[in-house]
């Protein structure tokens, strides 16, 4: 069997022609006008701790929508999953404020008919139409819960109780520190620098110019040899604390709650420099195969009862103001503990995650966009 040269060329040409793209139009979906019969299944992308059996099982029993969960540990991962395979794999995502706009402008999510979400009228005003999920008056999602990124520490090994983020940049704690493996972590360092080095002029930790970014990168590169591990999965940090590998870390309240439940001596605190945080939104995929189940889910998880379950489980604050009483019913004092009664002043203290853009808030356009943040992060962790 002789293979001639022309034959090979032809074969190669054929293979390349298979590899050439053809355009694919994105469809603009109209919001649902009424919730119809459930489709029997629901594929969701959620943060760890956002789809617990405690409320997934009752939801399945009530609506007949079988929930298929996929966990993601960063906003980037959520965006990638919602876009994977051209979209249409997943129905819902619990996107944080730094992912929502990317999903909206990428046409990956559909507008929401807010009239179909009765709990919405009871949301705190700041979350009824926040700029990160509502564009030109069109709602692209329904707010869910929000909370701060905390400083987690081992209560037996770390004394006195830390009050500043400086402990995670301190040579004395070498090899005992863990921070998230996530470019948005740059904002935490920027927030710290905005207080410790005012001359840099950092006003918003998500709006960094090149010289400001250089200073942050220098700080984080100096931090690298002190790090035991950059945690990528929530369980990484849980294991690191449980097995004595680290005593300090940047964390979510989820890790604190899970570790405390397992009787590991840890506590978390909000350092004086301030904290970053998240405000999450349930968004429906533009190509959602099960939109009715998606709406059913949003309605179910925004009820005061589930809002309270979620808040207590993860250690965060519900969007629905009616959840406060329900929280105290489920766990005495939890409404106050998780700030469900605190209102606007506490909300304003948290520097919520948002997507870094070229345009700074002050009208200038010399800030670094998220692509630059990702590259800087790769450079930092090496």
């Amino acid at each position, binding site marked *: *069997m002789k*293979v001639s040269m022309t034959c090979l060329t032809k074969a190669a040409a054929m293979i390349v022609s298979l590899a050439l793209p053809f355009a694919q139009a994105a469809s603009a979906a109209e919001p649902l006008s009424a919730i119809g019969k459930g489709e029997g299944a629901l594929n969701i992308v959620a943060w*760890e701790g956002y789809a617990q059996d405690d409320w997934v099982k009752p939801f399945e029993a009530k609506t007949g929508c079988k929930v298929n*969960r996929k966990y993601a540990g960063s906003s980037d991962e959520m965006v990638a999953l919602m876009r994977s*395979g051209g979209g*249409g794999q997943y129905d819902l995502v619990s996107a944080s404020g730094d992912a929502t706009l990317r999903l909206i402008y990428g046409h990956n999510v559909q507008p929401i008919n807010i009239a179909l979400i009765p709990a919405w009228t009871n949301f705190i005003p700041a979350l009824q139409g926040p700029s990160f999920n509502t564009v030109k008056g069109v709602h692209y999602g329904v707010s869910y819960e929000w909370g701060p990124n905390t400083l987690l520490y081992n209560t037996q090994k770390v004394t006195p109780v830390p009050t500043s983020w400086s402990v995670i940049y301190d040579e004395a704690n070498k090899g005992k520190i863990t921070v998230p493996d996530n470019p948005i972590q740059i904002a935490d360092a920027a927030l710290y620098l905005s207080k410790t080095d005012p001359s840099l002029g950092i006003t918003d930790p998500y709006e960094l110019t090149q010289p400001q970014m250089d200073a942050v990168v220098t700080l984080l590169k100096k931090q690298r040899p002190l790090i035991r591990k950059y945690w990528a*999965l929530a*369980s990484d940090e849980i294991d690191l604390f449980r097995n004595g590998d680290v005593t300090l870390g940047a964390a979510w309240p989820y890790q604190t709650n*899970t570790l405390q439940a*397992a009787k590991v001596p840890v506590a978390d605190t909000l350092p004086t420099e301030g904290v970053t945080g998240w405000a999450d939104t349930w968004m429906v995929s533009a190509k959602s195969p099960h939109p009715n189940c998606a709406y059913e889910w949003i309605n179910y998880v925004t009820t005061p009862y589930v809002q309270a379950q979620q808040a207590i489980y993860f250690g965060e604050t519900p969007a629905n103001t009616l959840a406060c009483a329900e929280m105290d019913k489920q766990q005495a004092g939890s409404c106050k503990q998780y700030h469900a009664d605190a209102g606007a002043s506490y909300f304003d203290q948290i520097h919520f995650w948002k997507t870094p853009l070229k345009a700074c808030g002050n009208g200038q356009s010399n800030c670094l966009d998220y692509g630059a943040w990702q590259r800087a992060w790769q450079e930092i962790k090496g």
Partner: protein
Amino acid sequence: MRFDLAKTLLWASVIVILLFLFVPVAIIMVYAFSASNIQGWPIQSFSLQWFARTFADDEVRAALFLSVEVAVVATALAMLMGLLAALAVYRLRGPGSEAIAFAVVLPIALPGILTGMALNSYFVLWGINLSFWTIVIGHGTFCTVIVYNNVIARLRRLPPSWAEASGDLGAGPWRTFRLITLPMLGSALGAGALLAFALSFDEVIVTTFTAGAQTTLPLWIFGAIRLGQHLPEVNVVVCVVILLTILPVLLAQRLMGRAALLHK
């Protein structure tokens, strides 16, 4: 005397290597009985609760069934295509044959992440939604090469005179194949299929890139690890899978060992 010392040392290293291979497996099995959902050493208290929970967990069951389905379909495809490819490449002569023999092993010689991301971007390009079948496509390719390798290795060691004799005795090619070639290839095909099944069943990297919302068992395990809430369920599942496979694997090895002896 000196030779015996060498032999003793060799046997000792075999034991050490077996320990190296099996200590982690033993640890997995022991943690299935841990009471706590967060794993630390040593285990504080023991319990059977995770067995009950795992058997009641319908997500685990669905993931297990999906993995078996994928592995069965991928292995069946691989047996057919691997056999065909081996028979053809074995007969190939000439300048093209070397290149083809080289190209065919690429799917197992190149890292899975290449296959995975190549397929992923390829499916996106064509607007193909990720599904059960895209997983099967990803697995089928490397499984085919596994089967192919086993079969072609056997073919190269078979005396061609057998098939010729059959032809001389008037048997057609199909009959020769059915009565002579296939039985002689049987155990190689079986060994290839077993390995292909095992690799497909436990594949993570290619699957991560080719699965959509489908959750195979390894993907479920990865989810459980990242969530960190019900880790011992992972240990229970692995225990059960080992117990279910240990007998077939042992049996297959014995049968193949016997077949190999017969051929000598």
